[in-house]
């Protein structure tokens, strides 16, 4: 039923100075890359990726406008509405993968790396403006040591306060140039994903990228999330390289709530 289920917030955590992780119990099975529609009563209903996909689920936001501000201001015990999960998830079918995330784009990559098939190697690239804003870096570092995941951790900051100075796409390009990478998974600002796409095209490496477009229904009837003929909510949000290649709008334009194209 595409109607909100009311859940109570069970935990709120300041994951970085600018990112808030909100947890709630919602039993519907979900896979990394899928999203839910989150009803913030009296404010808005917005799509959010899941950063935890078990019965206890979580999402992470940064304040962009009213809805994300309300989400980040939630307190334990507050009631919100959840429907979904929706959309096509990431699919891990190869062994040596790169996962590249910028900002809240880390959300679906966390469960992706954590629940990937055993024997998968990950080069995980965490990008942000500053060291303090690198999301889930502590978790990634802990996972490498405690959970025994086969992860090589890379970081990129715009100010150079940690890891490579600049954008995480530079690391993607360097890894692909070195060779031995089977597939790339990307989530984050569109220009990050577009950069990753260009590297994957250059080196002919498969890519899955999680796209964001304005959403209303979330289940494929309203056309709000139209993306060059595809529906982001139904055909995506995770798209592979052949589909991305057909999207004239990828990296260039997105539609607002009226359906009017605007620059990225």
């Amino acid at each position, binding site marked *: 039923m595409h*109607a909100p289920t009311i859940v109570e917030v069970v935990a709120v955590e300041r994951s970085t100075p600018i990112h808030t992780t909100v947890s709630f119990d919602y039993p519907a099975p979900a896979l990394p890359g899928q999203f839910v529609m989150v009803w913030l*009563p009296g404010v808005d209903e917005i799509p959010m990726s899941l950063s935890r996909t078990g019965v206890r689920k979580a999402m992470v936001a940064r304040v962009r406008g009213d809805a994300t501000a309300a989400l980040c201001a939630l307190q334990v015990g507050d009631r919100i509405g959840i429907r979904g999960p929706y959309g096509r998830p990431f699919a891990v079918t190869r062994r040596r993968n790169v996962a590249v995330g910028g900002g809240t784009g880390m959300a679906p990559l966390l469960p992706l790396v954590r629940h990937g098939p055993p024997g998968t190697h990950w080069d995980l690239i965490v990008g942000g403006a500053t060291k303090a804003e690198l999301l889930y870096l502590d978790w990634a570092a802990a996972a490498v040591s405690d959970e025994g995941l086969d992860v090589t951790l890379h970081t990129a900051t715009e100010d150079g306060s940690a890891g490579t100075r600049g954008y995480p796409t530079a690391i993607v390009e360097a890894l692909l140039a070195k060779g031995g990478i089977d597939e790339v998974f990307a989530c984050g600002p569109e220009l990050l994903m577009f950069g990753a796409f260009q590297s994957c095209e250059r080196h002919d490496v498969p890519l899955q990228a999680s796209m964001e477009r304005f959403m209303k229904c979330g289940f494929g009837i309203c056309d709000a999330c*139209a993306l060059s*003929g595809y529906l982001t909510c139904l055909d995506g949000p995770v798209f592979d390289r052949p589909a991305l290649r*057909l999207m004239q709008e990828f990296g260039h334009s997105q539609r*607002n709530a*009226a*359906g*009017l194209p605007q620059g990225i």
Partner: protein
Amino acid sequence: MHTLPGDELPDELAGAVADPLLATTLGRLRLRNPIILASGFLGETGQSLVRCFAHGCGGVVTKSIGTLPRLGHANPTVVEVDGGLLNAIGLANPGMEHYRSELAAVRDAQVPGPIIGSIFGADPQEFSQLAKGMAAAGADALELNLSCPHVKGVGTEVGSDPRLVEQITAATTAAVSIPVFVKLSPNIADILPIAAAAVDGGAAGLTAINTVRGMAIDVRLRRPILSHGQGGLSGPAIRPVGVAAVFRIASHLQVPIMGVGGISCGADALEYLMAGAHAVQVGTALMDRGPLAFAHIATELRDFLRVEGFGKVSEVIGLAQGERP
């Protein structure tokens, strides 16, 4: 017609949507099958309309387009309820100036059926301007959405005032040479006087019905779910309302009717056709049956006609009128 990879219909469905048994006419419009996309579904962008043809529909109605871009209501704008869907999208649309380029993309794709441009406005002047825009952009016909709030009669819709309906229809038909259909709201005591007013104004045909006013309240949050409070109900719950409306109109007026409201399968489409509709529109069924809903409904309709020994789909139009109590 260009299609996205993977969008080609399986042979069985492809055969049905173009089966000569289903080929029909709607006034001057020729349809490969009588299953048409309803306004407000997948019609904000030209490329999505093209894709509906790839998925088997016989024609499309665009999203309702106004003069200026409108963001519509805040989310939640849709919520599923027992028997259907409630929505208060709030006539969000990119405005006619931009929409011309969307329709150009549909024209360029050389789709196998008519594009029916839906427009909404507040008065006859605005409707006739929009009609010219749609016609210039390449629409094969128009559908007037009269459920916009009527500025003078606060709280009521344009479509509940017979004089205004006649004036708007007359102004629009005078402005363009393509056929004009008028879409009727069920939120009125008797639909017939409005239907008659549209025909008096020169409408080539009618569409019935738009959504039925409704509301859903979340009891744990003690508030309406839609941000707008009230919304419009669509889906299976409103099918009897739509069938009754089409039956009543068809028994009094001699114009082609598009039946819409709660059609999810071939048998549902047949109810409307037998009530007197010449074609049907499908919207909410996309929720449960997905993008291939058109092709599945067309296949079920074709199979019924074969089994029952009909030679073409037009033979069933109005059959139930003979059984009038």
